[in-house]
């Protein structure tokens, strides 16, 4: 019953969204992958660019994840770097533990599941108290969460020997590890020696899976309920939507996708440290910038924005010191183009003119 009302309610929205069909998004990602892969195979692509591909894709994945939270659910999260961090560390520790025990492919598959499961769990736990509240509390709590996770992992010493796992929050000596023991997380030095399992193809597959989950959610009964909560909470509640449950669902999926990006992060670079450059709140905000500039609620936009904005400062390397300056100017320019009222009017006028021109031509013909 509820869903029927929602379907009717969102019919108009659907017609508008119809221009961006899910299949087109998959096709876009696959086409982009095919072109880039062709460049790699033919040796046209520089090794600098090749090194950028995996990070580019995992930032696109986490942007898709955050878009579910910000765009579909309408709640602001400033802690997605924290979920990435959990996914990264969880999977890296798992990979170290099972290195040599499991065959490579299977090990990465399990590491991936462990990383995603851990970030899902934390997303769920955080959601329980916070998503019951209305207002901007999620932003505040997730911001704090991201920082706590980062600082905790910076202080955590974890090692393993024949007596099992040892953990300490003070220093390496306090672990009392036997001489042939192995350090898993060494405080600020983080995890070293994670196998280099992630590659461009695997990353793109993960991106496609993330998009599949996100798009199916949006176009399902659950997605319509979530969007109804975003648009008008009271109206949604009045037709019997369980607000907390749907909020939890969206937020947990969002955290899980961020965790998946974290797994790729840790398996792409062998040294993993919970530094501010990797998982600080600036990174959370950077991911949010990808989402906003790509268009809130627009999944394909997130992928494009994340890819372009990640590559931009790297491709501007030739400009040396000025590149970060130019990067920030580009950000401001895109923001004005996307969101300033004057720019929106100008774009609409332009679009109207083009449409009118087309019609005119059709009539003439």
């Amino acid at each position: 019953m509820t869903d029927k009302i929602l379907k009717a309610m969102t019919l108009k929205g659907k017609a508008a969204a119809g221009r961006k069909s899910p299949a087109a998004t998959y096709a876009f990602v696959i086409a982009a992958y095919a072109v880039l892969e062709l460049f790699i195979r033919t040796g046209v692509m520089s090794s600098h660019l090749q090194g950028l591909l995996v990070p580019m894709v995992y930032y696109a994945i986490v942007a898709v994840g955050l878009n579910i939270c910000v765009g579909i659910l309408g709640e602001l999260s400033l802690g997605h770097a924290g979920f990435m961090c959990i996914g990264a560390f969880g999977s890296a520790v798992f990979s170290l533990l099972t290195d040599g025990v499991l065959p490579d492919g299977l090990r990465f598959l399990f590491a991936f599941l462990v990383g995603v499961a851990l970030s899902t769990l934390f997303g769920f736990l955080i959601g329980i108290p916070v998503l019951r509240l209305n207002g901007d509390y999620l932003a505040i709590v997730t911001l704090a969460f991201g920082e706590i996770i980062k600082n905790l992992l910076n202080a955590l010493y974890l090692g393993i020997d024949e007596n099992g796992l040892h953990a300490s929050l003070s220093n390496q000596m306090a672990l009392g590890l036997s001489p042939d023991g192995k350090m898993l997380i060494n405080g600020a030095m983080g995890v070293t020696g994670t196998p280099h399992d992630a590659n461009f193809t695997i990353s793109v597959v993960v991106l496609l899976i993330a998009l599949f989950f996100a798009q199916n959610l949006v176009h399902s009964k659950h997605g319509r309920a979530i969007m109804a909560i975003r648009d008008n909470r009271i109206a949604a509640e009045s037709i019997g939507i369980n607000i907390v449950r749907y909020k939890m669902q969206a937020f947990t999926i969002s955290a899980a996708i961020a965790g998946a990006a974290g797994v790729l992060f840790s398996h792409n670079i062998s040294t993993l440290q919970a530094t501010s450059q990797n998982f600080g709140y600036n990174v959370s905000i950077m991911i949010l910038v990808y989402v906003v500039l790509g268009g809130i609620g627009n999944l394909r936009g997130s992928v494009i924005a994340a890819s372009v904005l990640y590559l931009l400062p790297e491709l501007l390397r030739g400009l040396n010191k000025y590149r970060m300056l130019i990067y920030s100017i580009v950000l401001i320019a895109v923001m004005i183009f996307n969101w300033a009222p004057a720019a929106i009017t100008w774009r609409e006028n332009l679009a109207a003119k083009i449409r009118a021109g087309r019609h005119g031509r059709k009539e003439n013909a």
Partner: protein
Amino acid sequence: MKKTSRIISAVMVSAMAVSMLAGCGSSSTGSASSTAASTAAASADTESAAASGATFKIGAIGPLTGGAAAYGNAVCNAAELAAKEINANGGMNGYQVEVKTEDDELDNQKSVNAYNTLKDWGMQMLVGPTTSACSIAVSEYTKDDNMFQITPSGSAVDCVKYDNVFRVCFSDPAQGTASADYIAEHQLASKIGIIYDSSDVYSSGITQNFVTEAQAKGLTIVSQEAFTADNKTDFSVQLQKAKDGGADLVFLPIYYTEASLILQQANTMGYKPTFFGCDGLDGILSVDNFDTSLAEGVMLLTPFAADADDDLTRNFVAAYEKDYGGTPNQFAADSYDAMYAIKAAVEKANITPDMSVSDICEAMKTAMTQITIDGLTSSGMTWQASGEPNKEPKAVIIKNGAYVSAE
């Protein structure tokens, strides 16, 4: 809709903040030295290109922008300076040398990107990265490519865990142990306070070894207080604990930016212990808006003092000051020595630029263990096959706004 616009405004404000920060990062380092660096690089390139077809291509990586820019610029400038001198004196094994530098912003991933960029340029040997964590990240890739890597200042133990990687500086354990030994030997203090950065590989590495060695030498550690990268502006609590414990020496195994704040805040509190640091403090005299009189009497364990009166140091300091402005620090000296170590090894093994990257690396691995260098940072430096250098630590004290040997 109201919510969406609120989100947008929040994001825009934060994005502005981020971009402003990014802007600050690059503008604050747009100093005379960096412009000088790029022009010098350009002239070095044209000279060598004109001289002959085959050249050695050596890359250097370091943080050229941001908080640790003093290190990266020192490493890159000194590598270029050494290349110019080598070229003027007939090159390495008769071939000219080209040096290209890349920025890594003190970020592991960016450092790997910088490495890949240099590889595209045709780099055959790598001097860098400047800092520990970046150096470890890049060494995974140099190992795969079998490229010879010598890090001037990557001091963490893991930096040289592969046999293609060598270093010029001391390792962190060596620095921590040597500091404790030096303090005990010269009876600088009996009660010691430590302030360190628990989120930093370099700082926590030294601290661990310092504490172990200090206890073995009978020194009392009255306070051991940490801060993290996110919380490094107010040190009053850490200083107060050291003061309450009666520490007459405060050990600062940290980088110079935070140390300058600690010195200012200790001065405000009226707390005047001896401050003792490691090579990370090198550069404290060049911090913007820092009253260098506060650094009077600060001791640091570093293998290089710009005031040393041997010819090598004097010529190096004069040439560096002429080309880049400012007194070179230990990082510059390490990088300069790295270039000359490469030169010696190249000549020892008779390496030519037309060899493949992997062949050069194999030849360098053996040659590095056979050479002896009288460099800026130590005389009679030799290398072990593990990549560790054998050299003597020296202590330096700041007097009248300059680094002076403490002997």
